[in-house]
């Protein structure tokens, strides 16, 4: 009577033939599931693997050595990078070191502890930061160089430089079997 006849069947009288109307709604649940799965995948693969950069400043090489201050040997620590991820350090000059050269590894119980202790010692004595010279030998790897620079970053040492190694120091490394 008052409602529309949506049922197509049952021809009655002279009524028109109507096709059956189906709902236009589609179930989107599965599609949403898929979309979120893909989003998760893309988020995880893109933002997790961002490499970082560590700045490295090298001393100027062929500048005329005009205003170079003499460095007191009591404030200088030399770190030699040897093979097998080992380092050897001493204070002062290679010919007559103030402390006996010591072989150590990386990490919080190794060179980092030494750097902290010696750094504080130098600071207490002279009121200035310790100067660290890093001398990578030809047997050391890139990993050693990055790790030692990182250790210096961790202990907040700003006065450091990468310098070429001398034959005397190579002999030291040879003596201690890390060359």
């Amino acid at each position, binding site marked *: 009577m008052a409602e529309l006849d949506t049922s197509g069947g049952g021809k009655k009288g002279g009524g028109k033939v109507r096709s059956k109307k189906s709902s236009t709604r589609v*179930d*989107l*649940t599965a*599609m*949403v599931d898929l*979309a*979120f799965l*893909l*989003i998760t995948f*893309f*988020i995880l*693969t*893109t933002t997790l693997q*961002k*490499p*970082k*950069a*560590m*700045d*490295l*400043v*090298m*001393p*100027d*090489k062929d500048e005329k050595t005009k205003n170079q201050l003499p460095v007191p040997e009591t404030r200088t620590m030399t770190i030699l*990078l040897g093979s097998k991820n080992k380092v050897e350090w001493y204070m002062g000059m290679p010919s007559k070191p103030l402390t006996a050269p010591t072989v150590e590894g990386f*990490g*919080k119980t190794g060179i980092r502890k030494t750097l902290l202790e010696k750094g504080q010692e130098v600071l207490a004595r002279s009121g200035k930061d310790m100067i660290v010279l890093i001398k*990578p*030998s*030809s*047997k*050391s*790897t*890139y*990993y*050693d*160089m*990055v*790790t030692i*620079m*990182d250790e210096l*970053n*961790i202990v907040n040492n700003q006065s450091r430089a*990468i310098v070429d190694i001398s034959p005397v120091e190579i002999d030291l490394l040879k003596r201690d079997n890390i060359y």
Partner: protein
Amino acid sequence: MPRVKVPRKSTAIDMTAMCDVAFLLLTFFILSAKPKTQDPVHADIPASTSIQALPENDFSTILVAQGKAFFSVEGAEIRMETLKGMGDQYKIAFTPEELKQFAALETVGVPIANLKQFLALSPKERSSVQQNGVQVDTTDNNELYWWIKNARKADIVVHNKELRIAIKGDSKEEYPTIAKIIATLQKQKVNKFGLITSLKTVTK
């Protein structure tokens, strides 16, 4: 007494809006994702506690692994300008087609004399070619030196900025190789550069 009938509601929720949002986000992530550059050799980068992010533009990377060096620079315009500079340097005339090919090239790992042949190959053929890296030594014929020099010039021409250079080295790489690269950089007064590392946390 008749029972009160609670009208039953349909449990189906309209998903259209949610679907729209999901696909919008999906499109955003796909478009913002940078395709991973395929390095010619694998480099296992060391970890450090540095949290400085890499710049996106005006940036050049020297990949060092297995004793070889590979050069790459960001940005198609800078790449084209760099190659033009290299062409002038080595008296090689590159066609516009070759410049276009080079702009799409991720890393340079062949000697400059073979670059023309290398650019003539299809991208699929290139991946099968053994790349021996850019030549680095301490003589005047140091190709890496000129690549860096021309890339720096190109960056000043195109963007008027100083190119930032980073070394991406393999952990196992021996120090002399790295020292050679550093010497090449220092020869042109680049005393500040980056070392690409992955992130690690400090063990206190």
